[in-house]
């Protein structure tokens, strides 16, 4: 690898890489994100490797394993450039056809193209697919073009140019002013103005300062940061470099959660390559600025997403939060001024420096600028990562991009903000998605998880799920969170078992208020949100559990009963075969019957029944 010693060097390096890339006529991009890996994209890549070699095409065609393009549902994804042909659900056995048809003869393989479910026509390029059409992919679009393990790919798309600009054309104070003017707010959830945080940290006197990248994405249902760190780690590094230069820090840490092995690996490779290229280390681009980054690994504790707990964890201690009377920008890591931002926040920085704060602040709403990546998951047709301008409506995300309901059940809510957020009912889907509107609706932006729920989701069960989640993840330091959540969990257990009463509901609300008011850190303070928002919008469901001892969604096992519809049952016997307790009786080709007293209510019969004859009440 070449060592870049000046801005001119960097420019020349970029030109050389581009010239080299031009020698290849075509590029095959195979998604290598964790989602596609679950669909065995490695085998697809191996098939391309073999096929291209056999046909003697390796000189003409580049094979690239990229980060996540977001449409995980349809993985493994393969894109052929420059034709921009987007293939989905590619299997290793499809590869010879792609090579002979598309690569050698320029024809499309129809059955691998995305089919528009409404118009029933095949779509060639990704940007025409409804899932992508309404998105604004400022951050994620580069994932499609970059092999994260090759720094050259990032340099080729203009990588590290913003760093050069920040180092040589701007004073630190100008960088901070630019970020402030852009209106960028922290993408980790709280939405604190990034420029303001940097300014506060810069003001602190004293030699050593640190910057930290928070990649401890613990919110269940959210994976934007994983996709960015896996797919484009250099953009995060570049953001950290610019931030460190502005603040006056020479050392940075990336805290990666243990559950993200690929993000850890790709970040490590990126750091090593950046060091070799001279973009990390001493006297970067001969500017006199020194900066290096280390990775710290998490240990599977949700609370470590909280800044003070995260800092304790980097120090090798138990991840317990502390009171924030003294902010981390004053006293953070090892007592030194520390600026901590989330992965997505850092990744936005090079864009702002490159294109200017005016451009950035033209996107979004008055108080929420730029784009936000959401992980659209749950009971929705198209699941994956979506990047949209702030201010878009929930309806547009869930129905236009997400394609609406999944299997015939009406969508009734969306959960945003993870365990700190809440459930927003379908009646409020015209709500604009920005920091303030979501908070007003009793939820929050959070880090960007959007879990769609339909009629088959029990809101009491969801509330119970979050309370148990947080009870388990509570570090136990302060009493309201440790004990309060436990008691709230017990009440919700009672309700879902059909043992709840009216008093339970009011006690639940009272406890929720106490936990929110008196807990030490953000985890406890926001913990009651899922319960309070569920009570606010879905009270009839709670009442059905309490008064009628009934679970309308058919989820809470003690309150439901499975039965088989005599008219629909074809007597195929699949249910009887799968039933773990042998609770289903019936003759072949005759209607079957579930013996309620033996039934363990596992629901396997419902999953296997092709005639949809199994009912739940």
């Amino acid at each position, binding site marked *: 690898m070449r060592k870049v010693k000046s801005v001119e060097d960097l420019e020349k390096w970029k030109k050389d890489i581009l010239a080299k890339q031009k020698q290849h006529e075509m590029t095959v991009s195979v998604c290598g994100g*964790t*989602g596609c*890996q*679950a*669909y065995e994209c490695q085998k697809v890549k191996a098939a391309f490797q073999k096929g291209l070699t056999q046909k003697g095409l390796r000189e003409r065609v580049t094979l690239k394993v990229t980060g996540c393009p977001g449409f*995980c*549902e349809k*993985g493994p994804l393969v894109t052929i450039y420059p034709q921009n042909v987007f293939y989905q659900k590619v299997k290793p056995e499809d590869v010879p056809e792609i090579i002979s048809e598309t690569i050698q003869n320029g024809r499309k393989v129809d059955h691998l193209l995305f089919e528009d479910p409404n118009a029933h026509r095949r779509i060639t390029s990704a940007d025409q697919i409804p899932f992508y059409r309404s998105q604004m992919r400022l951050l994620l679009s580069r994932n499609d073009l970059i092999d994260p393990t090759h720094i050259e790919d990032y340099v080729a798309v203009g990588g590290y140019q913003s760093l050069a600009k920040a180092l040589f054309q701007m004073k630190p104070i100008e960088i901070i002013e630019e970020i402030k003017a852009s209106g960028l707010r922290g993408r980790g959830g709280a939405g604190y103005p990034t420029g303001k945080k940097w300014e506060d940290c810069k003001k602190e006197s004293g030699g050593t300062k640190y910057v930290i990248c928070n990649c401890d994405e*613990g*919110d*269940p*249902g*959210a*994976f934007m940061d*994983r996709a960015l760190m896996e797919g484009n780690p250099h953009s995060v590094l570049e953001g950290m470099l610019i931030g460190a230069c502005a603040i006056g820090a020479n050392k940075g840490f990336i805290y990666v959660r*243990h*559950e*993200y*092995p690929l993000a850890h690996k790709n970040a490590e490779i990126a750091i090593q390559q950046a060091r070799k290229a001279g973009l990390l280390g001493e006297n970067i681009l001969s500017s006199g600025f020194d900066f290096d980054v280390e990775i*710290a*690994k*998490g*240990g*599977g*504790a949700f609370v470590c997403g909280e800044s003070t707990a995260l800092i304790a*964890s*980097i120090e*090798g*201690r*138990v*991840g317990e939060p502390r009171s924030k009377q003294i902010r981390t920008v004053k006293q953070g890591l090892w007592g030194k001024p520390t600026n901590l931002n989330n992965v997505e926040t850092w990744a936005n920085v090079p864009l702002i420096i490159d294109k200017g704060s005016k451009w950035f602040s033209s996107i979004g709403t008055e108080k929420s600028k730029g784009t936000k990546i959401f*992980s*659209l*998951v*749950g*009971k929705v047709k198209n*699941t*994956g*990562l979506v990047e949209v301008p702030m201010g878009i409506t929930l309806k547009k995300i869930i129905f236009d991009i997400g394609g609406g309901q999944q299997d015939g059940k009406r969508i009734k809510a969306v*959960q945003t903000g*993870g365990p700190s957020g809440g459930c927003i009912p379908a009646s409020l889907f015209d709500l604009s998605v920005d920091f303030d509107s979501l908070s007003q609706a009793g939820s929050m932006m959070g880090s960007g*998880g959007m*879990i769609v*729920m339909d009629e088959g*989701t029990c809101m009491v069960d*969801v509330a119970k*799920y*979050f309370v148990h*989640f947080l009870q*388990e*993840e509570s*570090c136990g330091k302060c009493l309201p969170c440790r004990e309060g959540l436990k008691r709230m969990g017990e009440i919700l257990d009672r309700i879902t078992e059909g043992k709840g009463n009216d008093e339970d509901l009011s006690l639940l609300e009272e406890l929720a208020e106490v936990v929110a008011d008196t807990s030490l850190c953000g985890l406890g303070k926001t913990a009651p949100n899922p319960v309070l928002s569920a009570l606010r919008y879905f009270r009839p469901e709670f009442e059905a559990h309490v008064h009628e001892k009934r679970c309308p969604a058919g989820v809470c096992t003690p309150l439901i009963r499975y039965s088989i519809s005599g008219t629909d049952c074809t007597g195929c016997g699949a249910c009887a*075969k*799968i039933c*773990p307790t042998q609770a289903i009786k019936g003759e072949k080709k005759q209607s079957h019957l579930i013996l309620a007293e033996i039934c363990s209510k*596992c*629901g*396997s019969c419902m*999953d*296997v029944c092709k005639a949809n004859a199994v009912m739940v009440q």
Partner: protein
Amino acid sequence: MDLKSVDLIVDKYQEKRTALISILHDVQDRYRYLPDEALRMVASRLHMDINQIYGVATFYKSFSLVPQGKHSITLCLGTACHVRGGPKILRELKGLLHVEPGQTTADRQFSLNVVNCLGVCAIGPVMMVDRKFYGEMNPIRARRIIEKLNGKRGGVRS
């Protein structure tokens, strides 16, 4: 117990106390759990109190103080996996392996663990078996994967 590996791991992190969590991860990767002898060795090499080491090892969920089975089954119970039927899969796994989450089967073949999110939410419910991800799981597929690992292909139809 051969503790040479522990020495090498601590060397790799230059005896840095701040690397404690990374050190424990590496020790666990090597022994498939955190043996008491290894933790005492880490404590003495880092000049830390053994209580502190145990404090960290028991606080973070990724660490296990008991030996893990040959195969690790990790079921994701994040929100997206939860609403798509994760708990049903957990019931199936518990019934099949006769263990609770966090436990290992008596024959030391399987360790069952649950996590709060693996970050592969788009294709949930997700299960990780020996570091390999499986998406769009259901109880039937889960059972088939276990039976395949167990070497006996039961009469479960797809």
